[in-house]
Structure formats: structure tokens, C-alpha cells
């Protein structure tokens, strides 16, 4: 456990050094946020039927999406881990008296956290004071905010567990590009990153609800705006916990299996 904490701390502090990258990221996220909001604003001003989610809720959805992008994007990758596998440096990791799954999980978690800590605060701070209709509204009460924080954190843990599967797949395929692309495109769509889940047709929503992806992005964002009521949020947390346990279990098992048949090639 000490080792995992140590990896986590090392990566977290190290990740927070990249200030220029964070600044560039913040600028990009603002740009995207504005454009997407403008598009939806245009849609909503023409609409005559009842929208499944209000514009205000949608706008908070979008700003949170931009602020916590590092938590929820699937293509956020650690090339070092890929290189470890493809170059065989993993030989060293295999001579360590600790599980590789735990070490990698801690590393990936710290990287996402470091990246998000630097970016989310400025984005949220500014978005809270933007003029209408671009303003990010604060959560309605403290308990909503706490629920949001909890679901967001659980969502992050789910996302890291999901991305671990991607790293494990490289043991078999030896090339990260294929599994990465598949994961990123499908996973992000299913997480509601492209189209917010409430705006999807019902049949698609039914599919999305069966998969873990939306629990990392769509779910906490709608808890924030109150689009998902209190009781549903609590049920959602239980589902998050179940997914988390399942994904870590699968990853652990797959990793152990992959390591048994791994062959470190070359001298």
C-alpha cells in the first residue's frame, strides 16, 4: 500500500509541474465550451417541443465536461506504460515485490488528478461568473454538491479502471494505436462526451445505461445540475460501486493472465 501511495504522490507532484500545458488546455477548453454552448443555444431557441434537459442544465453539463476533461477522456494516455510493454522494460516491473496492477492504477490516477487539478479550478471559477446564458450555475444546495463530488470521484476511479483494460490489451496486441482508437471513439460516445446522454434517442439511452462509460461523465454532471434527482443519484452511486468492483476485478484477472504468458524478448 505504501508503494502505491508513493507512486501516486510522485506522479501527482510531478504532473502539476506542467503549467504551460495546463494553460493551453484551459484556453482550448474555453473555446470548445463556448462553441458547443452556442450550438445548443441556437437549437433551443428554435425548438418548440419540450427538451429532455433544460438549457441551463445542459450548460453546466458542458462546462463540467470541459473542466474535468482529464478525468473523463479515454485517450488520455501514458505512453511510458505502453513503452514499458512494447520495449520489454516491464522486465523490471516483474522483479518487484508488488502487484503491477496497483502500481499502474496509482500512476494513472495521479496523472489524471494532477492534470485536472490544474485545469478545473480556473475554468469553473471563470464559468461561474460568465454572463447569461453562458454562466455555470452553482449547485442548488450543499448536499447536491457533495453528491456531485462523490459521483465525480467514483467516476474517475471507474475511468482509470477502464483505461487499465486498454493497457492490458497491449500485452496481447503489442500496439497501442488500435485498442486506443477503438476505446476512445466508442467509449467517449457512450459516456455522453459527444452528445449528452439525455439528448440521445431512447433506444440508444437504453444501451448506454447498460454500460459503465456514462457513470464517469454523464452521471456526475447531471447530479450537479439536479437533472438526476437525489434518490436516483444514490442508486447511481451503488451502480458506480458495482461497476468499479467489476472493472477492477476483470482488470486484475486479465493482468495476471497476461503476465503469466508474457515473454520478454531480446537481450
Amino acid at each position: 500500500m505504501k508503494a502505491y501511495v508513493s507512486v501516486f504522490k510522485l506522479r501527482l507532484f510531478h504532473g502539476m509541474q506542467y503549467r504551460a500545458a495546463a494553460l493551453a488546455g484551459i484556453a482550448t477548453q474555453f473555446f470548445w465550451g463556448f462553441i458547443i454552448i452556442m450550438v445548443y443555444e441556437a437549437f433551443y431557441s428554435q425548438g418548440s417541443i419540450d427538451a429532455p434537459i433544460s438549457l441551463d442544465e445542459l450548460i453546466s453539463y458542458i462546462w463540467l465536461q470541459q473542466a474535468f476533461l482529464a478525468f473523463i477522456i479515454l485517450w488520455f494516455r501514458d505512453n511510458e506504460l505502453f513503452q514499458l510493454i512494447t520495449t520489454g522494460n516491464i522486465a523490471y516491473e516483474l522483479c518487484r515485490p508488488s502487484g503491477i496492477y496497483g502500481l499502474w492504477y496509482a500512476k494513472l490516477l495521479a496523472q489524471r488528478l494532477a492534470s485536472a487539478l490544474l485545469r478545473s479550478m480556473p475554468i469553473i471559477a471563470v464559468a461561474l461568473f460568465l454572463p447569461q446564458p453562458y454562466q455555470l450555475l452553482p449547485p442548488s444546495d450543499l448536499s447536491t454538491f457533495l453528491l456531485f463530488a462523490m459521483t465525480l470521484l467514483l467516476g474517475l476511479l471507474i475511468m482509470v479502471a477502464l483505461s487499465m483494460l486498454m493497457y492490458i490489451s497491449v500485452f496481447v496486441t503489442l500496439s497501442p494505436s488500435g485498442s486506443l482508437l477503438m476505446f476512445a471513439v466508442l467509449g467517449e460516445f457512450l459516456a455522453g462526451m459527444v452528445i449528452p446522454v439525455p439528448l440521445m434517442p431512447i433506444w440508444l439511452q437504453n444501451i448506454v445505461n447498460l454500460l459503465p462509460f456514462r457513470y464517469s461523465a454523464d452521471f456526475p454532471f447531471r447530479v450537479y445540475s439536479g437533472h438526476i434527482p437525489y434518490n436516483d443519484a444514490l442508486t447511481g452511486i451503488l451502480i458506480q460501486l458495482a461497476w468499479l468492483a467489476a472493472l477492477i476485478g476483470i482488470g486484475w484477472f486479465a493482468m495476471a493472465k497476461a503476465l503469466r504468458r508474457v515473454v520478454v524478448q531480446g537481450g
Partner: protein
Amino acid sequence: MITIKGLSKTFHVAKRSSGMKEAVKALFHREYTAVEALKDISFTINPGEIVGYIGPNGAGKSTTIKVMSGILVPDGGICSIMGFTPWQNRVAYVKHIGVVFGQRSQLWWDVPVIDSFELLRDIYDVPEQEYRSNLALLTETLDLKDIIQTPVRQLSLGQRMRCEIAASLLHSPSVLFLDEPTIGLDAVSKIAVRRFIRTINEEKGVTVILTTHDMNDIEALAQRIILIGKGRLLFDGSLDAIRSRFGTHKTLTIVYRNQPEPLQIAGAVVESWSPERAVLRVDTEQAVISDVLIDLSKQVELLDVAIDTQPIEDLIVQLYKEHQI
């Protein structure tokens, strides 16, 4: 300490000829060749030994090291190190060993070396006091003081390698596997690394298994060598044993005043000849060096003489020839 009996490992390697047609064919059906990396390898190593594990490229050296460090599961055979079977009790076992793979890196490339060390301290759960004293010893003997705060990516190969070796010893292992630890190092670094290996062997009684292509490493360190080729064990014994078996030749390089006629010396074979310089090979079992020199001085006016023992590389080449590898 280390007992290996009948170890064998076969790899299946996909093969494909060049060309488009073959590439398309390989999509549907692949042919595999079985490469026997290790065939029935057996040896025993006692505590405190330094063993040079040598062989030509692709002989199976690294494969053996990987099996012994628990990374690779062999197809058959017994490997018992300090009572552990490496690939079965991996986590309990690896606490007792240190491994350096000369071609790979275990340090985090974008953080200072000391951060990587501290991470390893936590991974191995080394008590703080033990860590401090180990670090002090390693810093001093490997001369790391000036580089320990530098990110790994800014280090030269030699500096990095010294850090890699230090990283493998922070948890006071009893066995150290070194897979080509001096690869790419300059003469000074090589000597520092060798001196260091000898120090930890003598002071801490660490058993060292060393693979290398640099025969000077072997000569400087190993009392015993194990030679393998094509996965088979070819020789296991002391350097002197090899010497007395093959090393009976001396090489005489002589420089003399202009002499147009080729030399004819009893008991010596002329390997190369020019009007000013010649290289002779003398089998010391058949002729005495001083006789050859007397004979020489009668024929030419000697300006310089150099007598060399057969270099260890030649002995190894001869061993390879004998075993046809």
C-alpha cells in the same frame, strides 16, 4: 544457494519470408519455428561466488537470467534459489534479489534519480535506517553524489548505468543478477563498476551472476565461468582451467632491422611477416620461449620484442569451435 537442474525453454517464433505474397499468406496461416533457447542446463552456485555467465549472442544467457529472476516460466527443469522457485513464489522471492538489465531502464526517466530511489524504497519496504546506510555506501562507491538530483533523461549512459546498479541494491539483495552491466560504458566507468561489484561481493557477501561480452569484466571479476552456447552448457569451471586447457600459446611480436628473407624458427609458427616486423606463435608445450628468442637473435638484429599470452577471447572462440557453435 542456487541450484539449477535440467532447465529447458523453447520459444515459438513466427517466421515469414520477405515479399508481398508471403505477407498475405501469413495473414491466414503462420508457420512457427521452435527455438530451443535452453537445453538441459544444470549448475550449482554457492553463496558469495561471482560467476561469469558467458556465451555468444543468442546463446540463452538472458533467458537463463530471466528464468532465475522469475520473469520467465521455463518448460521444464528445476530452479531453486535460496529455497524459492522463482516463478512460483515470485513476490516473496524477488525481495531477495537484485537485477540489472544493461539494455533496459528501471528509473523513471523524467524525475530525479533520488525520487526513483525513494520509490523503490517504498516498493521494497526498506527500513529507513537500512535505506540511508545503503544509499550512503552506494553514493560513495559508485560516485553518484553529483548526479543523484538530476533527472534521468539528462544523464549519460555511464552515469545512468551506475544509477541503475545502485537502484538494484537499495534493498540489500543477497543475489545480484547483472545482465551486461558494462554495455556501452567507457573505460573509467567500467573500472568503477567492476571495483564496485568486487566491493559488495567482499563486504556484503552478495552472490553475483554476471553476463557480459567484455572478457575484461570476466577476467577482473569472475573466479568461475559458465559457458553456454545454443542453449547448452559447454563449460563450467575456473578461468585457469580454461587457460591450462587451451591457453598454451604465446604470441611473439618482434621488430628487427631490415631482413629480406622470411624467418625460419624451430618450434614457432610464423603468423605474419614483413621485412621489419613479424608475429610468431609459440606452443609452450613444445618449445621454450627463451630458446626461440636465442634462435631469433642469431638470425636477425632484434629491436623490440613483445610476448603476449593468448587473450581470453581467443580461448572462448576455441571453445566455441570445439563445440561447433
